[in-house]
């Protein structure tokens, strides 16, 4: 068994071990990773940033807790950005396991709004976030396609009451807000087929500006919709979230996680290179062996 063959045939458990070791180690070390901003993300940021005060954004927190790592940072930074700009939010959670998590996130961000903050050189005073005035949390209903279609008629159709059981009509913010006609845009953060639903049942039928925050895997799949204009912007995975955090000047979870990403990527690339070096070397040896 020669060195190169070993390089090629290494047991997968070594790969697992190296990767785990690197991830655990770099999680500790403090260092800062520079961020490179892509235009797809920038378009989301600019759109939200330029909305006039009081406009309504429909934010769909449609992911499961298992995609929290990638999508939660987006929720945190977008919601904080919107509230700092005095925009209002209608929030849905169309994933079965999502509402509790979304509710927790809303509370967390409300708390952080109670502190003044300075982003991109602008000082934002502390303010209290009021349920029913600054946001409405609609919660979960099964069969997202029906819900998306239903909200196109009237938010009250699928959600006569909000997550906390208050009738929508009694919330000051929902007065005169009937359906998608009254929101500036829809931002869907999702980790599954719900995003297809937002395109075909939502944007396809009702034609609102639609932005996506997706997990890294899904992002590539949605570029055709970005190219065809059905999507007005999209951000993918942790990198997209980190870019948004960078644009909003709000250091958060995503940029924190980027420091593990980088070494992990390097490790995987090294393994791929090792595998190929081994492959070529052993093939060469075979060929030479055949000649002699």
């Amino acid at each position, binding site marked *: 068994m020669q060195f190169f063959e070993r390089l090629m045939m290494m047991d997968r*458990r070594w790969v697992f071990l190296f990767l785990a070791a690197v991830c655990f180690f770099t999680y*500790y070390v403090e260092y800062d990773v520079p961020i490179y901003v892509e235009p797809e993300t920038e378009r989301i940021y600019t759109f939200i940033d330029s909305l006039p005060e009081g406009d309504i954004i429909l934010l769909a927190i449609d992911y499961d807790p*298992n*995609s929290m*790592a*990638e999508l939660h940072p987006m929720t945190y930074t977008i919601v904080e950005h919107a509230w700092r700009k005095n925009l209002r939010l209608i929030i849905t959670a169309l994933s079965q396991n999502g509402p509790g998590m979304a509710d927790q996130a809303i509370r967390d961000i409300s708390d952080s709004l109670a502190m003044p903050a300075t982003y991109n050189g602008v000082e934002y005073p502390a303010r209290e976030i009021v349920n029913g005035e600054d946001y409405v949390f609609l919660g979960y209903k099964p069969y997202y396609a029906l819900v998306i279609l239903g909200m196109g008629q009237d938010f009250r159709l699928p959600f006569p009451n909000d997550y906390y059981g208050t009738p929508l009509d009694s919330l000051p913010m929902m007065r005169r807000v009937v359906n998608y006609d009254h929101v500036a845009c829809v931002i869907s953060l999702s980790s599954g087929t719900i995003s297809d639903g937002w395109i075909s049942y939502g944007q396809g039928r009702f034609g609102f500006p639609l932005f996506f925050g997706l*997990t890294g895997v899904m992002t590539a799949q949605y570029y055709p919709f970005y190219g*065809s204009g059905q999507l007005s912007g999209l951000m993918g*995975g942790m990198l997209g979230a980190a870019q948004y955090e960078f644009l909003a000047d709000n250091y958060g979870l995503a940029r924190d996680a980027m420091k593990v990403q980088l070494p992990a990527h390097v490790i995987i690339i090294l393994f791929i290179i090792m595998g190929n070096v081994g492959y070529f070397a052993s093939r060469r040896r075979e060929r030479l062996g055949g000649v002699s």
Partner: protein
Amino acid sequence: MKRSSVIILSVVVLLFLASWLWKASTLSSDPGIVNAWGQAFGITLAAFLTLAILSFLYRDNPFYKFAEHLFVGVSAAFWMVMGFWSTIVGNLVPRLSEGLSSFFKVPFDRFAVNYFYFIPVILGILLLLRLSRDAGWIARWPLAFIVGTTAGLNFIRYLRSDFIEQVSSTFVPLLVGWQGFGHFLDNLDLSATGQLALTVGNWVISLGVFCGLVYFFFSKAHTGVFGAASRVGIWVLMITFGASFGYTVMGRISLLVGRITFLFKDWLGLIS
């Protein structure tokens, strides 16, 4: 049970208890926490299950099997319970019966009653007839209803958003902002948004789509020019798959980071 298994099992149990005790003692120092023992148990259990699943990477083992079976049982019940309360009780019962509504404590509005909702109930019960050996074929009726309705829905849905939209967005100009060769050479711009890059990009898109579609022709042998186009098609597909794979690595590692955070921060408390 083998002796080594007993030793491993007892070590794990001891560690579990130690973690519980230690976690409870640290949590009880925080005045904001009400039920420190309960929470400590929950976090320790969560950490144990996390590690049990991770142990699968080494090989299949009793801890993984335990976590797997627990997960299957709990999640199956979880979905049933959620479905029952949100759909049957939340949507159906208030539309059918006052007695049932008051039993389940859901508000009942007799003017929203709609007896047509008995139809899906009947179809649902017909579906349950599957369990019967003789009347099992009746279960095909509700199945036919579901398949028919969704086939109709899918038919239009894919036609509209996947097909027609995609076709029309393939109509890209092959010469972007063309004002003659002289103009092109004088203002040659190599940036990503420059004329050259856009023009080349549009060529690649058009050719890529054509060749990709050719690859998906099934009723013609892939030989000659047709075969060449189909080969280019599969190259483009492979590049895409490679790129998507590379793109995904990131997200997957983020998920791991989430678990590391849990273990380090919430369980071991090594990071604040």
